[in-house]
């Protein structure tokens, strides 16, 4: 998929406008509705939307209805109902909340519209009502980060964790995957404390400053994403202790990529919003084509360190 390189730098609002007003009723074409979590608050979601719209346009025979819930569960449920009313052929949902959206998904399912959940899973109770899930395996990502941490520290050390937004599925799964794998692979590495950084760099920087005060010895920091990881790195640099600490993150951001290149940051997980968007669209198309689609479709999110840095493009966010 070379659409990656042809990212238009059009204004977000404009692309939404164009997308949501393109309603052509061509023969054999699918209408797919997507309701997203909160486009605009972070670069990942913004890039995802752009990639999704472009992939759909490139495919040619798809009309899309692009909606955004603005992080609001109630609004997302309303959007689901709107899409059912419009009788789209399939709905893709990026859940604002893994629990609260289930009744709306069930409604769509009852109306005979297949639902594909993207990026972030819904609770098990809802899995019967969806056609498929497509997204990253966050538990696996946490495990991979634990493996990197173990390698970097040689199996021995004291570390802290800065997790994502409390209650958000991605944050919970990454932390769980990390903690479980670390305990099993590396009993010599002690996780001293975990505090949430809320996916916010400034917040993570403050948490790390307090960690540095509290613990005289910190050998490693695992952050739920690179944005927070770079905040932790900032704090450690400021305290003159960055050289003693191994930094490992997830969802490689451009700042994290650069920090790896400079040798200040050990490693991360490469998760492309473009792959994420393409996987969601492809899964929906496979479902519509009547193919036998597995329930869980994970796209690949490899480890990235200084050793294999060149194999990856610098993230656009």
């Amino acid at each position: 998929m070379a659409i990656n390189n042809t990212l238009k730098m059009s204004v977000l609002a404009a692309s939404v406008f164009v997308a949501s007003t393109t309603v052509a009723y061509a023969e054999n074409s699918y209408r797919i509705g997507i309701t997203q979590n909160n486009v605009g608050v972070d670069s990942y979601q913004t890039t995802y939307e752009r990639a999704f719209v472009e992939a759909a346009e490139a495919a040619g025979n798809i009309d899309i209805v692009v909606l955004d819930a603005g992080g609001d569960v109630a609004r997302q449920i309303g959007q689901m109902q709107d899409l059912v009313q419009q009788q789209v052929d399939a709905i893709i949902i990026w859940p604002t909340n893994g629990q609260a959206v289930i009744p709306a998904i069930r409604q769509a399912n009852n109306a005979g519209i297949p639902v594909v959940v993207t990026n972030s899973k819904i609770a098990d109770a809802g899995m019967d009502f969806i056609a498929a899930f497509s997204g990253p395996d966050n538990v696996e990502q946490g495990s991979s980060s634990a493996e990197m941490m173990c390698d970097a520290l040689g199996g021995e050390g004291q570390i802290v964790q800065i997790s994502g937004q409390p209650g958000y599925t991605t944050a919970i799964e990454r932390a769980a995957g990390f903690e479980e794998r670390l305990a099993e692979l590396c009993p010599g590495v002690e996780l001293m404390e975990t505090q949430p950084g809320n996916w916010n760099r400034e917040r993570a920087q403050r948490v790390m400053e307090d960690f540095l005060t509290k613990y005289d010895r910190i050998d490693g920091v695992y952050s739920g994403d690179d944005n927070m990881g770079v905040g932790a790195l900032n704090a450690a640099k400021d305290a003159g202790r960055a050289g003693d600490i191994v930094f490992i993150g997830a969802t490689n951001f451009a700042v994290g990529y650069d920090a790896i290149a400079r040798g200040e940051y050990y490693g991360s997980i490469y998760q492309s919003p473009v792959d994420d968007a393409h996987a969601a669209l492809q899964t929906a198309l496979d479902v519509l084509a009547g193919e036998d689609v597995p329930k869980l479709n994970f796209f690949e999110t490899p480890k990235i360190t200084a050793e294999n840095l060149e194999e990856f493009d610098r993230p656009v966010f």
Partner: protein
Amino acid sequence: MASAEQTKQPVLKGRVSRAGILGFLSAQGILVFFLLSMFVFSLFSEQFLSQSNIMTVVRQASIIGIIAVGVTVVIIGGNLDLSVGSMLSFATVLVVDLHDKIGPMNAILVMFALTLLLGAVNGFLVGLMRLNSLIVTLAMLSVIQGLVLIYSGGQNVDIANQGGTWFAFFGRGYVLGIAVPVLLFGLLAILVQCLMSYTGYGRRIFAVGGNPMAAVYSGIRKNWCVFSTYLISAFCVACAALVLGSRVMGSQNNVGQGYELLVLAGIILGGTSLLGGAGSIWKTVIGVLILGFIQNGLLLMGYPYYTQWIVTWVIIILAVWLDLANKRKRLLTTHS
């Protein structure tokens, strides 16, 4: 400061003249509370009172503190400013994004100009159009956040060359061993405190907030006074954005989200009345510091972040209650 207190409570003769420790305790309750909470935390964490930790906390608190200095002036003038969080996002995104495009100096100038413009819009709507400040600034909170998203297209902004820019001075620099954010906070606090206590301008703001009708009858141009408070508030936000942008060397679109509440919390904790006409900058400084030390102390003791919310706001309600109880001279309500 003395004049500020006089404007605030001209009739509380008993309280002012009451001598001795008790009088001091009730007059300076917030300071006593501050020292007490410091003491309690120091019992549980040995690093808490270390010099490096104190410097860390004061530095962390200085962003909220700088904004709170400005918002205190707005509140003394009898209005609210809830738009400061979004305004902080706006200013930070702007200065960070423009840094690499037009150079640090120009970026700072543009950022200050546009942030002051937003303040002027607030001031125009509240001061000159005389709309309700709660509604206006609540609306501006969303409007400005929207502007930020349109401007940035949802992308994070970063400064590419973090090591080689003098812009780092504001958030990471030190002068005579003191962190620049702390210096800026202190300097602004002293400046604005002097402005409020020793100048005619300050007295006019107190008058407008305390009794707008009387202020107008005594020839004060009330509308322009209110207008100017929003400029002060916006100026302080711009200073805070300087610190925040330089400290993080990047910015998310919603980086200032929630700051308006933290700022208000600090101000209320300090004892400035939300009704206007009373309060002082130095109380706000203490309030903001208490807030910072509570958050830091709880973290050092290993409590998760959300307990901070509970503890912080319980303490604020307690503080407000004790303050009222002190004024009423009884713990529960006076008869209605």
